[in-house]
């Protein structure tokens, strides 16, 4: 430090705590993530009902529609229920975060965080966590109502919490990629409207893989919703063997890849 003695006298106790000039400590990251997540949760204290409504309304409506049209004895009932759960995660995590990040970017709101000694990845994890947590009620609502409507013998195993969390993280991460690569909230909005049907209707989410057109059977391999739907179906049927673990591993990879991409891609600084 080159600052003068008077300054040091006042500031030194604080400056001793600065974790070097290069990297933040792990504990600072964890502390930041916890507080950032907490502020993100507080920041929706007046609008959480709308978040829940937005992420559950369409999946529940689709569920009821399919029940009325097809009846409860349909062969693909498990696909209808888990597909609508995936529907809820896409709406609650991916769409919400993509639009929010586009809006933050457009209004230069990232600068508020950029001027604070917190890392990009901490903020990103906090945003993703908030979106994931807020899509939980919608996922649970679709699952419980779907089970009742279609009289499915599904098991509400605790591992579902892990599937919920990883799915939310993976899709929020992709939402963050869309949000941060869009120049404003309108473009992010348009992008989510394009991505949404691709993720839900071109993967074995609502119908089995063998019922998809041949081309889509191949292209669905790259879509995260394929693995999320597989993991949900396996967890709900209590089959937690190798295929389930493989699906969970792939979802985890999607999560890490999207977070890594955003952390590398997001630059607080403008060119």
């Amino acid at each position, binding site marked *: *430090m*080159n*600052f*003068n003695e*008077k*300054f040091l006298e*006042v*500031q030194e106790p*604080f400056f001793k*705590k*600065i974790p070097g*000039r*290069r990297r933040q400590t792990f504990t*600072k990251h964890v*502390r*930041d993530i916890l*507080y*950032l997540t907490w*502020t993100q949760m*507080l*920041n*929706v*204290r*007046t*609008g959480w009902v709308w978040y829940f409504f937005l992420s559950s309304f369409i999946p529940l409506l689709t569920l009821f529609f399919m029940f009325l049209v097809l009846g409860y004895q349909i062969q693909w009932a498990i696909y209808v229920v888990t597909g609508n759960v995936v529907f809820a995660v896409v709406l609650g995590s991916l769409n919400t975060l993509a639009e929010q990040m586009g809006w*933050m970017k457009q*209004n230069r*709101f990232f*600068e*508020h*965080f*950029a*001027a*604070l*000694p*917190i*890392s990009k990845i901490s903020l990103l994890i906090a945003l993703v966590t908030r979106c994931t947590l807020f899509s939980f009620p919608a996922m649970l609502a679709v699952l419980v109502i779907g089970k009742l409507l279609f009289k499915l013998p599904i098991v509400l195993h605790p591992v579902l919490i892990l599937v919920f969390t990883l799915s939310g993280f993976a899709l929020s991460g992709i939402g963050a990629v869309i949000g941060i690569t869009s120049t404003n909230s309108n473009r992010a909005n348009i992008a989510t409207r394009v991505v949404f049907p691709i993720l839900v209707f071109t993967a074995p989410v609502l119908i089995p893989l063998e019922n998809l057109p041949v081309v889509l059977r191949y292209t669905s391999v790259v879509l995260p919703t394929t693995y999320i739907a597989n993991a949900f179906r396996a967890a709900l049927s209590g089959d937690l063997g190798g295929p389930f673990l493989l699906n969970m591993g792939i979802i985890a990879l999607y999560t890490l890849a999207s977070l890594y991409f955003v952390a590398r891609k997001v630059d*607080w*600084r*403008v*060119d």
Partner: protein
Amino acid sequence: MKNPVYQIENLTKIYKTGSLTANDHISLEIPQGEVFGIFGPNGAGKTTLVRQMVGLIKPTSGSIHLDGVDVIRNPQIIPYYVAYFAQAPWILWSLKVWEVIYFTGIFRGMPKTEAKDQTEKLLNDLGLAHIRDRLMERISGGESKLLGIAAALIGNRPILILDEPTNELDPINRIKIWNLLARLRQENGTTIILVTHNVLEAEQVVDRVMIIDKGKIIALGTPGELKAKVDDRVRIEIKFKPRRPFDPLELIKPFKDYKKINPDKWQIFIPKSQVSSVYNQVMSNINLDDLDDFRLMTTSLEDVYIRMGGIIADEFQ
């Protein structure tokens, strides 16, 4: 000069969109503990300059060193030294007023109790205590400005950069902010960099001033140095009452250097050495009952600001 906390050399910023040169080879040093004012008309490049100083914009060329560290290559260290106020933290719209300040302190690495204590102190100092539990989305523009300033102050960063801190504030709150900044510098040795249009008010606190226009520095120095460069004369400003039994021009004409602002308001410019004799001469020829206002003024920083750049002068006159 004391140790410079900021060293800027040949800083140039050309925006990719529109090829606008916002900053053109700016070089300056800001020593520790100084209150440094940046003035200039709208679009002069002031905000671009400070946004580069806080690492929010990448410069096109040139260098910025903060406490000896190249912060263009290491922008992540800036928030440990610098608190930056640009706008109210609207992203936290559903947080309560106290929460916005408190969490900013937490993110600056303060322990919880310390952050809480300082939050309470700032709420009281800035007159926000009565709205401490109100959501940010429900406070006025002026209150949000004060809240943004409080958030910038928590954590006692050694360098404070404030971009238009007194806009939207009423006169009492503006005085409160200027007094607070003066106290901060005196008690903590805080280096303060101010971007403002309130030149007259800022004059009370700034040590040095930079006037910038079209991205270039057009003046840099202490207020005294700049005033001497622009005009060393004293100005007598006389405002006559509308109903008067004489023509003001007859009275003013003997002083060769004068200016008519409007039929009732006139200015006379005189060298410092003649102040006493001219003052007596004016006063002996005017009946006080015919005067609405009478002022004897030295050059202000606002005069410097107005006269240093053509565009600035056009805007103000």
